[in-house]
């Protein structure tokens, strides 16, 4: 049982930033876990299970975000969400072939 939150820095890599589709993927992924998963940016915190809260972060390409997870399955949660960021929410292929 890990009582201290896990932390990681992630970068928004997909060209259009955290718009509707990536936010949707993020919420679906976060909702699989019991852990509370938060994204922070310059003092603003967003709940990864809330699409409205993620959208209002307004994170564009290149934004660094502070990812934290707290709860029993925090480790799995943080790993799977970081993976989404690393893969640019699977939106990179189209942009690179441009």
């Amino acid at each position, binding site marked *: 049982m890990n009582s201290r939150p896990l932390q990681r820095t992630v970068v928004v890599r997909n060209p259009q930033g955290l718009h509707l589709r990536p936010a*949707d993927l993020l919420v679906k992924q976060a909702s699989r876990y019991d852990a509370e998963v938060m994204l922070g940016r310059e003092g603003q915190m967003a709940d990864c299970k809330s*699409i*409205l809260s993620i959208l209002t972060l307004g994170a564009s390409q290149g934004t660094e975000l502070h990812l934290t997870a707290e709860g029993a399955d925090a480790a799995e949660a943080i790993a799977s969400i970081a993976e989404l960021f690393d893969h640019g929410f699977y939106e990179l292929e189209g942009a690179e072939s441009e």
Partner: protein
Amino acid sequence: MEQFHGIPVSPGVAIGPAVVLDDQGYSIPRCHVALADVAAEHDRLVAAVAAVARTLETNRESTSRRLGDSTGSIFAAQLQMLHDPRLTAELQRKITGSQHTADYAVSQVMHSYASALRRLNNPLLAERAQDVLDIEKQLLQQLGAVTHRPLDSLVEPSVAFSHNLTPSETAGLDRTKVIGFATETGGPGGHTAIVAKGLELPAVVGIGPFLDRVVVGTRVIVDGDRGIVILDPDQATLDEYERGLLRRRELLARLDQLADLPSQTADGVAIELSANIEFPHEVAACLSRGADGIGLYRTEFLYLSREDEPTEQDHYEAYSEVVRAMQGRPVIIRTLDLGADKMGHRPLAEYEHNPCLGLRSIRLSLKNQDLFRPQLRAVLRAAIHGDVRLMFPMITTLGELRQARMLVNVVAEDLEEEGVGCRTDIPIGMMVEVPSAVLMLDRFIREVDFLSVGTNDLVQYTLAVDRSNEYVADLYQSSDPAVLRLILRAVEIADAHHVPLSVCGEMSSNPARALLLIGLGVRRLSVPPQALTKVKKAIRSVTIGQCREIAERVMTFEAAGEVDMYLMDRLSDLAPELIPT
């Protein structure tokens, strides 16, 4: 008593009970429920959410089937927003914690999300605000809160407050029910301001958030001269404003006596004084106040005030009504002057990052000739009823002017071939409202019959200020020396070529600035109907020599503030009656 400051865009004072409209024209009053009813109110919300979820699910399925999954996913995203755990928690807190009604909680919470999204400065996300508001509307419909339109149930003339009013919403305000309005957003010179002036409704815009302070039905004052909104005024303030209203009525009555006197300076130099109108019904006010003609007939209302695109016949009827009523006095009809973003009838442009610099006005007309031709045909047809002149807005290059003129010739030939009654020899002019037009005016001037300086856009494009952007609206100053130099240059070129030039922007309706323009050599002004007698009073109070002195002095200044202070000082010497008290 509480006081808010904004930007005055339409003069006059309105005193009356407040009514609050929101973007959709409905108002959600701030209501509380009794502690005992909190649980029932929350159940109402849960039922509404479930009902909206069912609708969204149905929409998603049917849209995906017809248009594919990617379009259907819009509704999937809305569903996810609707079930957002943060949203649910906030709504619950508002109802059970603050004892708000479900309606009010929904409207407050959804609006704060929508405005947070709009503030992001990311067009992709700002559009999501519409999704949030869409969900809000559906929830409110389920809650039974939005069938009620507040303006329909007003028993006495009221003052309308709103976050935002679009030009078409403003145009749709019933003048027997609304005596003035104030909005949280907006800036000077926007179309809403122009429409408000056209309706002679006192108006203040760009106040910032204040609607949550308004108690519906209490007495409020909108001071469209000073840009002040007062909620629940105390007796002394109320008395002062009512005395002011009385004085204003007396001054207007005195000014109205000038209607039939010629518009000329004290030493007899004639200044042609025409009116700017938006709606045909304004002609009556122009005539009763002695306008020499219509210096600017805006045609945007034809596009803004209806669901479908206006036909040639719609144009023709609107123009003919004005031309006939003016009984041979000149009527300058300006072709469509809107941005693609305002053309709801057809998608003319994909998202434009910068609509002020985008597909608008004459550019839009030239690219959409099926839209432009009916308007040109209607102008030529209406010309048989009087003295009609045609004017193109926002001309930036010679190519545009030539292309537009050529199209007029083509349309004229068509009409003649069809044997339709029309005039094909009407004067054609252009608006001078982009700096490039001033810089190239020595070339333009050989190809036009008249010029009209549109100061509103000229200021915007010279100073690089979006006049409807509240953050920079204070930089929008028609007295800026850069603008004055452009106007002076235009006047000099027009005089040298003996081409008539008028100034039709808002600048000319300010009596002090009108005197400056005359001093710069302008001999034709076009102003809103309600400013006619005021400007005539100013003109009749001065000599040309005095105006020239004003202009000479002003051209030595370096900032708009200096110019305006000096002008007010001069006006208070020359025509003290016109100084607002």
